[in-house]
């Protein structure tokens, strides 16, 4: 009656064998294809290096002006711009300028990739139900699987460095933009689509003129969420060699440097709030036409 008190599990030896076989197979795969996969990601590495070089190599005053300029163009709100300026000056004054620049460049690259991959994928999901049925569970896994688990194979394949870190961040941060693009397009009023059809729109014209513009507020919310989630991954990414604000935090954890942790933590919070406010008010400004409602 053993099986009543103890779960009837697989034989220990067999379990060990299975694990061993899978590990061996993956290691073999890594040895065989690691190099070619690394070459595949080379453009990504160059993109990241260039972005980082630009942010850290350019004199701080120019980068600062650039950030203020983007904040203004995005929000057109003096309060947001002033808050951005104060935050950036404090970050610089407390000696975190260089790390912040590295983090911002990483977030930038990650956001660009998430948008470039996520929006077309979201469109495809909205178009084909089967696509949605396949992608949705994958997104569930991406969002709930502990990052360390997929870091293992990524690191085995690509080693420690920027690219594996970026991949980890993108895996975690991309789902919102995909999900909300899909949702936004599916929520577009049926009568609007009917009107577009009645005038003889092609699929592309329908997408470009009706579905994407009407889904834009939802898509913007997705992009905003993607940026926020990328920032949340900064510390974990630093464990596999991504430079920036995550590394001092990591050092603070292992050496119990309270102040170092707090400073860098607040720097991450600071740029998160800046990104959030600027991107949100940019999204709102795109929807200006819907504000003036006829009484």
């Amino acid at each position, binding site marked *: 009656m053993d099986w009543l008190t103890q779960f009837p599990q697989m034989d220990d030896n067999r379990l060990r064998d299975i694990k061993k076989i899978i590990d061996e197979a993956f290691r073999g795969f890594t040895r065989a294809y690691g190099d070619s996969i690394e070459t595949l990601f080379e453009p990504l590495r160059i993109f990241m290096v260039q972005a980082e070089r630009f942010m850290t190599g350019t004199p701080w005053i120019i980068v600062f002006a650039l950030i203020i300029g983007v904040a203004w163009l995005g929000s057109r709100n003096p309060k947001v711009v002033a808050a951005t300026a104060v935050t950036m000056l404090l970050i610089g004054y407390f000696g975190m300028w260089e790390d912040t620049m590295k983090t911002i460049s990483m977030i930038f690259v990650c956001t660009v990739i998430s948008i470039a991959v996520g929006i077309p994928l979201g469109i495809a999901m909205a178009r084909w139900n089967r696509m949605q049925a396949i992608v949705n569970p994958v997104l569930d896994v991406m969002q709930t699987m502990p990052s360390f688990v997929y870091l293992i194979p990524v690191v085995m394949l690509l080693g420690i460095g920027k690219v594996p870190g970026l991949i980890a961040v993108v895996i975690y941060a991309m789902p919102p933009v995909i999900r909300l693009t899909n949702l936004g397009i599916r929520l577009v*009023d049926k*009568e*609007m689509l*009917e*009107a577009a*059809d*009645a*005038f*003889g*729109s*092609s699929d592309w*014209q329908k997408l470009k*003129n*009706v579905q994407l*513009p*009407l889904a*834009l507020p939802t898509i913007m919310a997705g992009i905003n969420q993607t940026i926020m989630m990328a920032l949340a991954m900064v510390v974990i990414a630093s464990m596999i060699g991504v430079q920036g604000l995550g590394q001092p935090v990591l050092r603070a954890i292992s050496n119990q440097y309270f102040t170092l942790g707090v400073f860098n933590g607040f720097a991450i919070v600071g740029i998160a709030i800046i990104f959030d406010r600027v991107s949100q008010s940019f999204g709102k400004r795109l*929807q200006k*036409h*819907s*504000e*003036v*409602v*006829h009484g």
Partner: protein
Amino acid sequence: MADPIGIEIRNLYKIFGPQSAQLMQAVRNGMTKAELNERHHHVLGLNDINISMPAGRIQVIMGLSGSGKSTLIRHINRLIDPTAGEVIVGNQNVVTMSPEALRDFRRHKTAMVFQKFALLPNRTVLENTCYGLEVQGIPQGKRVAAAMHWLERVGLKGFEKKYPNQLSGGMQQRVGLARALANDAPILLMDEAFSALDPLIRVDMQTILLDLQKEIRKTIVFITHDLDEALRLGDSIAILRDGEIIQQGTSQDIVLRPADAYIESFVREVNRGRVIRADAAMEPASGPLPDVTVGGDCTLEDAGRLMVQSGTTRLAVRDMQTGRPAGTLSMERILAAITQRAPGHA
């Protein structure tokens, strides 16, 4: 201006549900809507519709909600595919068109106005009006010129830069109308186009449409649930109930000779004085003709007003085609026509 073309709908059936094709034969053999719903959980949307819509006239399709009128109009540009039947426009069968041919047909032959306007909220009035032409690939300058022309015709000059949200319902539907007219298609499909507007604005829009129609002479298919609107606009009216046509005819036919008790119950609420024409109520001329003459298409209300103004109780009625006197209309005849109930159904 494109030449008007007529629309011929023949033996059109629409069954909603996954096994519509298999159930088609049962419906042809006389299965009713209720039976189909009960036994097969399919909805009979349209049942053997036959309408011939003449070119350049306003065909009204009237029915209450659920009668299938919106389903019917969507078959003309095939926003809904029929289960069986033909829709012949000009000499083309819309039902068998390839997707490309259908797109081309929708771009050049039809334009549609929607109950809830369906304007793009992120585009200005002008950009919305251009939409049909933009889809056709007409160059920017030309489409703006056409759009401006039609916006002016519907009374929206000066509003081009506004967004739909900044306009009232009536004005939004004028944009919808201008957008459809800018397409310069011979067929105009109007799906409850004025139903969402309040009564005064609705009458206003009807007037605009009737005035425009004198000049554009399009084949207009107008869907409504409002009999007054149907009688005012329709050169020809088809009344739909539970997916079947129960009467087709002119406004005179509907009001004077309702086909059954159902239509009779609608007609009872109608202001007959504004619908019935002098030539439908007149009697053959006998003896000397009265001095005052009215056209045969004059409504009884207008004829009565003329009597009061000219201090007479008899009018001569002129035949609209020959221009010669066709009969006389007395005060008694007017009263009788206005107060009459159709026999048998009341």
